[in-house]
Each structure stands twice: as structure tokens, then as C-alpha cells.
């Protein structure tokens, strides 16, 4: 189940690479279920719903992260999230805090399908591998230590 979903998305990435429109999980006779990751929501009854689980095929790959940095500009991500993902009209991606979850699969879902309040869906234009490349870059950003206090008083 898990494996076939990843394969399905990789197949879809291959289609995108050939310049054809990429429908999610287009490969295979039985399409995989939507790869919606369930965010770090509270689960009623303490039972998390079952959903597709995605694995980043490039997790931790520095060369892919580098390619992702270029893609971050080429896809105009920086136009909303600023260079380095530090945030502009779109939220910061570099503060270690996540509106829709910061796990690989959650970031993948945000980019692939888009999110309410303005995040466009990039899965169609990028395909799964392109999105994973961006995920790999975003996850490589150095995280500052979380400092919830901003003070203007002299210590």
C-alpha cells in the first residue's frame, strides 16, 4: 500500500517530465487514494484516520536540496514566501513553525494540492518529484532556535 502509492506518484512525475499534464496517481489501473496527509490535528476518540502515507524519496539529499533552492525561485515560491522562505505575504517556512504540519508528507501535501487562503496547487505543473525536490529544500533550511519573546528593553 505504502510502496504502491510512492510508485504511483513517481510514475506521475515521469509523465510531468515528458511535458504532459500530471494527474495525481495517474499510473496503474487502480488509482491510489488521495495522498492527503492528516495534519497534526487532534483526533476524535484519540484515533487518527487512515490515509496514504508518503515518503520523501530524496530525504536528506543535499544535491536535491540545492536543486530545490533553484526550483523555489523558478516556481516563484519566493514571490510570496521571500528568499530563503523567510516569509512575506505567505508565511515563513524558516521559523520551525508550521500551519499545516512540517513533516515531509505534510509539506508535500501543502505544495502538491495547495491550501486555503492562497497557497496554489503546484502538483499539476511540477509533478510529484518536483514537489519532493522543493520539500527536500524546505526541510534543509536551517532552523533558528525558537525565541517566542521579542523584547525592546535593555537587559
Amino acid at each position, binding site marked *: 500500500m505504502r510502496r504502491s502509492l510512492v510508485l504511483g506518484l513517481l510514475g506521475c512525475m515521469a509523465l510531468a517530465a515528458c511535458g504532459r499534464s500530471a494527474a495525481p496517481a495517474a499510473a496503474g489501473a487502480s488509482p491510489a487514494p488521495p495522498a492527503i496527509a492528516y495534519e497534526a490535528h487532534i483526533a476524535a476518540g484519540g484515533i487518527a484516520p487512515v490515509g496514504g502515507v508518503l515518503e520523501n524519496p530524496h530525504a536528506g539529499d543535499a544535491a536535491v536540496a540545492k536543486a530545490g533552492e533553484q526550483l523555489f525561485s523558478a516556481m516563484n515560491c519566493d514571490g510570496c514566501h521571500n528568499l530563503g522562505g523567510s516569509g*512575506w505575504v505567505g508565511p515563513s517556512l524558516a521559523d520551525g513553525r508550521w500551519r499545516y504540519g512540517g513533516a515531509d508528507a505534510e509539506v508535500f501535501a501543502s505544495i502538491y494540492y495547495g491550501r486555503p487562503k492562497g497557497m496554489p496547487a503546484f502538483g499539476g*505543473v511540477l509533478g510529484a518529484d518536483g514537489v519532493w525536490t522543493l520539500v527536500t529544500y524546505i526541510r534543509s533550511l536551517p532552523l533558528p532556535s525558537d525565541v517566542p519573546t521579542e523584547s525592546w528593553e535593555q537587559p
Partner: protein
Amino acid sequence: MARTSVLTLFICFGAASAAAVTASPAGRADAASEDGGWTMPAKNYAATRYSGLTQINAQNARSLHPVWTFSTGVLAGHEGQPLVVGETMYVVTPWPNVLYAFDLRKEGFPLRWKYRPDVSSNALGVACCDAVNRGAFYLDGRIVYNLLDGHTVAVDARSGKELWKTAIADMGNGETVTMAPVVIRDRVIVGASGGEFGIYGWLKGLDLKTGQIVWTGHNMGPDADMLARPDTFKPPYDGGVDVGAKSWAGESWKTGGAPVWGWISYDPELDLIYYGTGNAAPYDPEARAGDNKWSASVLARRPGTGELLWAYQFTPHDNWDYDATGAMVLADLTIAGKPVKALVHFDKNGFAYTLDRATGKLLVAAPFAPVTWAKSVDLASARPVIEPGKQTGVSKGKVTGVCPSLEGAVSPASPPAYSPRTHLFYTSTNNLCMDYGAAHASHLRATPYIGVDFAYHPGPGGNLGAFIAWDAASGRKAWEDKESYPSWSGALVTAGDVVFYGTLDGWFKAVDAHSGQMLSKFKVGSGVVGNPIAYRGPDGKEYVAIYAGIGGDWALLAGDTRSDDPTDVREPAEFMKDIARHTSQGGIVWIFGL
């Protein structure tokens, strides 16, 4: 009631229908003709933001105090201004663009109704800078305004019922709508934002009764798209067939931006509307060789048909994101002893321009803030004398010390005021410079088409802003009040010779129109990016209203004034480290009285 107030307005502006014109539209000084209302974004078609009310004056303004407040429940930047029509105040919020109607006759000004349109949240990712709205227009019993997701609505001013709703802009192509419409006779004039999304900028005329789109005139492209006819389109300096397409490399005009997100003024005698266009897209000028007409320009059209009569470009081949969407104020001035029907414009590029509004000919151009990108504007050619070292482009790398910054020497969202009593213009200004590194941008529909790495620095003197009085006949500053932060509010001037404006750190100020001397100030709970209005209440007393609610530009504000999202916590801006010490988000309507 509606009919009466329309008649009153026409008397007040010294204007009449195009068929029977009697006088100039520029604001008159006589308080007798002042109806006490505020039914258009800029008070009148001339866009002077001048009220003939006199109760509040330089002698008694010290006793101004708040008499009423109302939280709009919305956090985005509260640009724009309320309207007062008879005994009702109308307030439009940023997205989700709620329209409130307050009953000014009753204690506490309770709502008569509120209108909550269905506005797509997708617009929040297509609007470049913040989910702002610059206000509504009242005419003939209708309140007309724009929704961020690309619609214009007309609402019955009495009942709050929706009369029509028209899709005017396409978010899928990067278009959103933030500007305030102007209604002239039976035409609603609207435009779209999207200079950061590579739109094919336009202005549209809708039918007031039905909302149907009657004409669309593009701001660039072939003459046919621009509604420019060779026999009637007479730009004073740059002629030629299809100049709106030929002044762009290849087909770059098709994604060249030139949005319309500012203000529209109107001269009923000439039957011309005037509006400014925004930056050329993308921010890398090497991607679009040529003048890029008519981005960063003022265009003059017939409201009924949209026909283009003349155009003048303030910043040819924009290298620095110098939108010209700021207000075009119409005033009758005396220049070198001669009466002139003038159009006055404070541009992001740092020059204040005085034009002949019948022809578009340039009369005066002088810097009102520090300028390094050009040495001057040559009056003969009407073109800027460019400083070569400040030209940008991918091949040039990081260009340092460009003044003004891409925030502009004044934000087009902060319209000036003009007093026919003092003959002075009053405007907010910014004192910011920048380093600008153009980068390649790829056009991908509904995503940003920008391409720049920039950093801001305080301009000379260190104060980040100022509020100034300007003599547009001579091109000279009359006085200046320095501000610690970029000054981002509109201006209001009254026949009491008091000028009102707000500051980014949340002060609402009244100053003497002759001297700039402070008369009163009050901390209004959030930074001010809106525009003050004056009106006479049902009790016969004069009041001044203003929005508080910082926002409007998250490139400027860095985001540390936001506290609404625990998952988005940002560092302060390098050049402005302590604005969040003084203010945070929050939309509030304030009314002040004596």
C-alpha cells in the same frame, strides 16, 4: 433622498453633467456649498480630499477627542476611508470585504445592516502585498465597491440588499481587485491589481444599473486593445501607431503588468477620467527592453466609452517598481501668472508632477523626497535625466543606493489633499532607499512574476518618513513634519485650515495647514494606513473619521507586527527594528469631534 444628495454634490463640486457644464471641478473654498457628506473615496471627482467644513479649526483642534470607535473584526491593513451619506456611515473592510452601514442618528451608532459577500480565500494568495480594500463609492442610492477575488458589487444603500455582482477580474491570471471604483453618470470604472503577477493591465467601464461590462481598455498593447484611435489619441510626447506594443521587446507587453490599484479622478468639463498605471512586469527591466508604454503612466479616457485621449509616462522603462497608481489631483492653479487647469501627481519615483490636464503637457516636475535614479526631469522632452549607475537588470547585479526605494517616495495607497484656501498640497512621504538586484523571473500563471532581491535603508537624515506641504505651481516644499516611520496614511484638509493624517506607529494627528504645527494627536490602537474624512453629523457638528489598522505591505512591515498566527513568527525588519514595539494589527473605525 438619493436624488437630492446627487444634486447637492453637483452644486458642491461646481460640476454638472457633461451636457451642461458650468464650472471647474476643483474644490471650492466656500463653506456655503459644503454639503457635509463624503460620498466618494476622495470627497470629490477632483480628488482633493478637501472638506469645506469649518467648525474644527486651528484654534480649537487641541480639544479634539474620540467620540466613538468600532472594531471591524478584520486584521489586514485598513486602507481606504469610510463614506458618509446623509445619516449613514459606510465602512468596507479588507478581505473578506464586509460592508457595514452605521446609523449616525442613534446613540452608539448601531448598525442598520451589514453585507457579507462570498469572497474566495484564494484571493489571499494572489493579492501581492496584503488583502486591502481602498473603499466604496456612493451614487444614486447605490454603494459600489470591489471584492478582492475579482468582483464588483452594487448594494442598495438603504436596505443593504445586493443589486448586482459582476466578475471583472480573473484570479487564475493573477488579477485581484483592491482599488476603489469611481462612478460617473451610468458608468462604474474599475481596474485590477497584479503588477507582481504579470497581468495584461486594464480599465473597465460597467453599467451602473446592471453591472454589465460595457468597455475594456488595456493599458498597453495594440491601439485596438487600448481603445486608442489614431485621430483622437494625442499623447503630447510619444506618438505612433501601436506604441503600447512596440515599446516592449517582443510580446512582453502581454505579461507587462501596468495594473490599476489606485485612484481615479474626473473632470466633468473635459469629460475625462485620469488614472495611473502600476509598474512594468517583471522587475528585471532587461526582460522587456523599451519604454514599456503605458506602464508607470497617467492615462486620460472618456468615461462613457473608455476611449483613450492622451497618456504621459512618468517612468519610462521602469527599473525600480515605480508604480504611478497614486492619485491624480485636479486643481486650478496659477503658474507663472497664468491660470492652469492642472493635474498634480506625487509619484513613487520621488518627483511631483504638475501637468496640463487637457493635453497631458508637463509644466512642473521637482523632487519631493531624496532621488538618486534620475538627476531631474527635462521639461522639453518631459523625460527623466537618468543616472546610469542606478539602472538595474540581471546583468548589473546588485545596484546600491537607489532612492526612493520600491516602496515609493510616497505610497500610492496614501493619497494627498489639496486646499484651495492655502493653494498647498499635503502628502505623506517615505524616506527610504534600497539596494536592488534584479533576477530572472519565470511567468507561471497565478504565481508571482517579480524577480528581485532587495534591501531597504533609511534615507538621508535617518527619519523614515515625513508629512509635507507642497506648492505644485512652483515645485517647492512649504513645510515638513518629520516622522520616525514611513508615513503611510492619506491626507485630509478642511476649510478650518486643519490637516489630518495618521502615522504607522498609530498616532492620528491634526496639524496647522499653514505651518504644519502640531495641534493635536491621539494614539489610535494600530498603525494608520487609511485616509481621514470630515463630515457633518445629524447633530450639525463636524466630525473626522479615520481607520486604524496597520498592514498593506508585508515587504515593508516584515511581519513582526502580526500576532494572529502562532505558526508564523518573524524577525523585525533590519531598517525598522522597533515598529512592533508601538503597534500591532487590528481594524478600528475612529470618529473624533470637539
